[in-house]
């Protein structure tokens, strides 16, 4: 899940300073999307500008990430389905070791580890499949796959969540109304995500999709497994993006060779790109939830896109939707514990992790995994808050002592 890639804002900057029409496609293309070849002789002004722009783009990520997390938090606090175990608790197929299915290896930890391994294996496999598909230019296959899964996600999960809401508030709902709502919501999503639509609508759908995905994970993964998967995915992300033979790294490099943008499906872009197939990341994950990490990795889309319309300001920091999902999963899991301190601690921790990652990005100027820092800081603070800070805060709140 190559989390963040910053377009070479150097070029951007000067372009918008002297608002001349953009450079010829190829070179622009390259510079626009492959951070690695930002010219070293960028001069200070550009650096300076870059910082400003960097900050701007960071904002453009922080806002949607926070929004997504907030959606998840409130969904969990209001729709009680997610925090209380349904009976009988159902889990994803990919986590065979749990208390429900009889086959369990004694301790929950070992179960969780096994599940995590299975899931990770699946993720890696899926990523490799995607990389191969991209390598051999099976764009159509990828497209179809993503379309299908986005279809499933937008319709099925929307209906599911609606039903939960209806049950929560105990009011009557008929099939006609609910199907109309789902139909409207889903179709609009498909249109705006796969074709053209207002930026705000696109981004809104991306957020909602990620939030739903996260909720599904929280609901259908065993507790311990969830934590292990969070950790495992973060580690895998690190490896996949940075290691020279990591699949995502390979993906990026192939894209460079072909001198075509790593197509931004599965990627939330802070500004509008010509994302014909933008944001199908989740669909993949929904289609095969365990795939979300790979899904959120940058992947190839048909390069067939109106190149000449590339605009300078349309470069921006991009964040894989998988990162959205897993941030939200962490925060959402914190929200299931009936304590707001933990939630806020995780929230802030994740944002800090994000900022840190962006800072590093600004320094090393190459595609970076967005998960590791945030997730680990988040987990640390989850544990600490849950077991150390909260008791103290409760005591203080009871006796109204403010520090």
């Amino acid at each position: 899940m190559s989390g963040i890639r910053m377009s070479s804002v150097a070029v951007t900057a000067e372009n918008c300073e002297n608002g001349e029409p953009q450079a010829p496609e190829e070179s622009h293309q390259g510079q626009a999307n492959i951070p690695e070849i930002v010219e070293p002789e960028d001069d200070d002004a550009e650096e300076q500008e870059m910082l400003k722009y960097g900050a701007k783009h960071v904002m453009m990520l922080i806002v949607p990430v926070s929004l997504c997390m907030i959606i998840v938090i409130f969904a969990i606090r209001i729709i009680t389905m997610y925090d209380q175990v349904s009976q009988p608790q159902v889990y994803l197929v990919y986590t065979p070791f749990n208390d429900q299915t009889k086959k369990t290896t004694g301790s929950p930890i070992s179960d969780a580890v096994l599940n995590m391994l299975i899931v990770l294996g699946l993720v890696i496999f899926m990523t490799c499949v995607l990389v191969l598909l991209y390598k051999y230019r099976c764009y159509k296959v990828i497209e179809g796959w993503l379309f299908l899964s986005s279809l499933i996600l937008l319709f099925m999960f929307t209906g599911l969540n609606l039903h939960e809401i209806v049950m929560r508030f105990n009011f009557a709902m008929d099939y006609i109304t609910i199907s109309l709502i789902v139909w409207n919501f889903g179709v609009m999503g498909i249109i705006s995500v796969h074709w053209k639509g207002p930026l705000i609508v696109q981004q809104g759908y991306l957020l909602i999709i990620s939030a739903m995905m996260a909720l599904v994970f929280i609901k259908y993964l065993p507790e311990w497994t969830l934590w292990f998967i969070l950790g495992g995915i973060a580690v895998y992300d690190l490896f996949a993006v940075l290691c020279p033979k990591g699949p995502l790294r390979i993906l990026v490099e192939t894209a460079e060779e072909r001198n075509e943008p790593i197509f931004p499906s599965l990627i939330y872009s802070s500004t509008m790109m010509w994302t014909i197939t933008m944001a199908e990341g989740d669909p993949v994950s929904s289609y095969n939830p365990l795939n979300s990490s790979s899904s959120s990795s940058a992947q190839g889309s048909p390069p067939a896109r109106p190149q000449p319309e590339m605009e300078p300001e349309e470069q921006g920091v991009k964040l894989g939707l998988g990162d959205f999902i897993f941030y939200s999963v962490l925060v959402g899991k914190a929200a299931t514990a009936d304590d707001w301190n933990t939630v806020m601690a995780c929230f802030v921790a994740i944002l800090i992790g994000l900022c840190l990652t962006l800072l590093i990005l600004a320094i090393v100027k190459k595609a970076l995994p967005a998960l590791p820092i945030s997730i680990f800081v988040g987990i640390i603070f989850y544990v600490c808050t849950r077991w150390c800070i909260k008791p103290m805060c409760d005591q203080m709140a009871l006796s109204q002592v403010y520090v």
Partner: protein
Amino acid sequence: MLPFFYVLITSAYSNTLNDNIYTSIDFGRDYCFRLNNFNSQIGCQTSRDGDSGILLQLHSAEDIENTLKDLEEPFIAVLDASIFNNITALKLKQHSKTRGLLLIENEESKVDSFSPEKTCPGNGFNYLENVTDVDVSAPHQSQCIRKQLWNPKGNWLSYDDFPFGIFLIKSKSQKEIILSKAQANIENYSLKPYPLWGGEVRSFMKSAQNTETCIRRGTCDPLGGYNVHVNLIPRDEESKKPIILLIAKTDSTAFFKELSFGEQDSGVSTAVLLAVIKALSKVRDENDDLKADIMITFLQGESFDYSGSQRLAYQLNPLMNDTLQLRSFSLTIDDIMCVIELGPISTLKDLYLYPAKSNGMTKKIEEFFASYNSSNIQFHAVEPGTPLPPSSIHSFLRENEAIPCILLTDGHDNIQSNVFGSRYDTLNNNENLVSRVKDLSEIIAKVTVQLSNGTGASHAEVPESLVSEVLDCFLVNLNCTLLRRIGNQFNSTANLPNSTLSRYSGVRNSFAVYLRNISLDFSMKDLSKIVPSVEKCNATYTQNWAPIIVNDTCFGYVVNSSSATSPAFKLKDYSSTKYSTWTESRWSPNFRIMGSCCSRQKKSRKGKVVYEYDKVPDSFHSPDSQNKANQQLHIQHISERDVVSQDLLPDDQENGTMFLRRITMDEGSLRRSLKNRHRGKGSLSSDRGSPSTPCQLQKANSCSTIFIDDNTVSQPNLRATLKCVSLAIYYHIKNRDKESEFVDILDEKRHPLTKQPVPSDYARNDPPNNYIYRFIKNLFVSAQLTAECAIISLIYIERLLVCADICLQPSNWKRIVLGAILLASKVWDDQAVWNVDYCQILKDMVVEDVNELERVFLELIQFNINVQQSAYAKYYFDLRSIAEQHGLTLPIDTLDKKRAKKLEARSQNEEYDKLAEMVESGPVKAISLENLSKRRPSAAVIS
């Protein structure tokens, strides 16, 4: 590292603000709940998220008047339970701000006259000789028979519908908490805006409106429980002995779920009837020849419009397709000689005999009873024409007026107890109750014997200790010596609740199981005479007794139980006014005190926990309340309910084997089997076919050598099975009760199986047995079908007969059998025979015709082709039994390894798996019985 962890864990449990604001109070199950019937909902209901209001203590009706006059904020009334009656309830109900009601129960302030019941219990479901008996002017349109208010004290409170929750508070600590808060409120009620103590009541009932609605939405479950039938000796069907039916209602109404003691209502009569069982079985053991069969039946659900007795009467009615399949025989209402019911008995001084219709029989009974008049028990015959009090008898009369019934109760023209149907219905210390019960039960036993044999039985007596034990169990504490002893001897791991028995029948209750256990223990007969050895203590050897090994002696019993849910639910007629339609809602209760300033109770908030309950359906129907939180249990609960109805109650099955009944209709077979019985007296089974087998009879199964024939439930022997099946079909045809209207496709003339012309009298003379056998055998051999197919096809045939309401007759049997086998082969075999192949087998039959036949067959049985394990086993064993009756059993010899492999008697371990999961799932008390009843099939594998 470790100490640090320790620190973490300990510090994790600090008390949060929430714990300081809310003190949740768990009321166990002492709150009022919601019931539905065909047209109404009764009981209590709060809003879904709970209703909150200030705690307000009220002392009297006037107090309510004055306090509530100018009260604008919502409140939760705290009331002394003794002043909760219809007046106060009405006042609270009328006030718009009432959000809940907490009743403080005080032992000292006991109410001696309070009956929340109807003035005429069971009205609308009583038997009315003629319509003029109904008195519409009576309150609540109660159809009191001839203006006879049986329960004049009744104030109908239980039948009111409250829009708020009502809880009863018994535990001392809870009382203290609530009263102190309420007190505090009174003190500073004047000085607003001082915060007042509040409460939040939550007992959210899911069902609404009426039974039809809530059943449709699956938010309620039919009331009932189980009827328990005890026979002294296994009824043998052929000798049409009349049956004397002794019945008593065992349950009682409940306003608060767990608080329905109903001791005067039904407690004593139940105890008496149990004692009667003991007495009678003594008589039985002394002299073995009772002219009439005696059946003792404990009815449940009676308090809710007689659902139990209605079901029984319905089952007894041969026309209804719901015969009461007791273990080895079935009953119809014609077999019943008379019904004697024990009504409410509190003072066993003067007992009144109410004949339903006074005729010779009832006269005789009255005389018999009168002959036992003594100083301490007086029997009075009421003058003819007195209306019959509310009692189970009404249901029997509604089914069939002719049955002579008599009710024995102590109320004269109105009920004796002033607390009928209330939680105060406990026995006020009746002096020498034990001896009276003893006397009464002995008298009843004697009368019964007298009825059957004409002469009284001198030695019908019950040990006084036993009576006191029974009373102790049912009136004082369930955790009593008797039940414990029985539990041990049936090696059940049942842990008895340490409380008084609650008689509310509910959806399912453990009460029936206690009754069954005890009566089983009382009526057990030592079979060591007829069973050669303990190893052979199994169904085959014990004739019709259900075998059970108690400390290394083989006993037999005939105790059955059948569902007591009203026929309305069997008929799926949920708005029926003919049958009882009571259902119990599913719910999730909760209550918490709030707005505390210094309450430091470290209680966890029930809100969440409870909220999870209503995700779990009817968690509160589980019989033992300590399992409430354990949701695993409730999940299996639903499924486990019908498991119960099949395994714990083998008689409650939809598909009883019809052919057995057909056979018993047959005199020929009757004579034969009687003859056999004489010969096979004391032998292994009713008969071993050829008379040259007695030497074999001495062979005994032991651990080392097992004698077995090639015919087991898991691997039936083809030839034997086919023989039996053909026999079954033969009897079906032979004893068909009516010439049914013909179904075209099944008619042989229209669709001949063979070219040669069908004889003109094809519809008249019955085919001989061996002809049928050949026909079937031909099909099976040429189609290479297995024996299981035969059994399944028999099941299908009978399904067809039931569903299509036709009979096997010479005109149609061939095609029906063919269709059944066709279907069975397709369902059973993995690579089924094609219809075309059948055309090969029976020549000159066109495939279209076969297809058509198959289609019609499927339609007629409503595409219900799946066969329950239990049903299969049932058929198998019944087939075996005819096999034995007709000497078709295979020669038995020792079981060696390869035969064992071949037989692969896997049914046994399967049984045990099932048993094991019963143990972890079901109510523990049921297990002991599971043990008993489940031994049977597995034992029969080695026959």
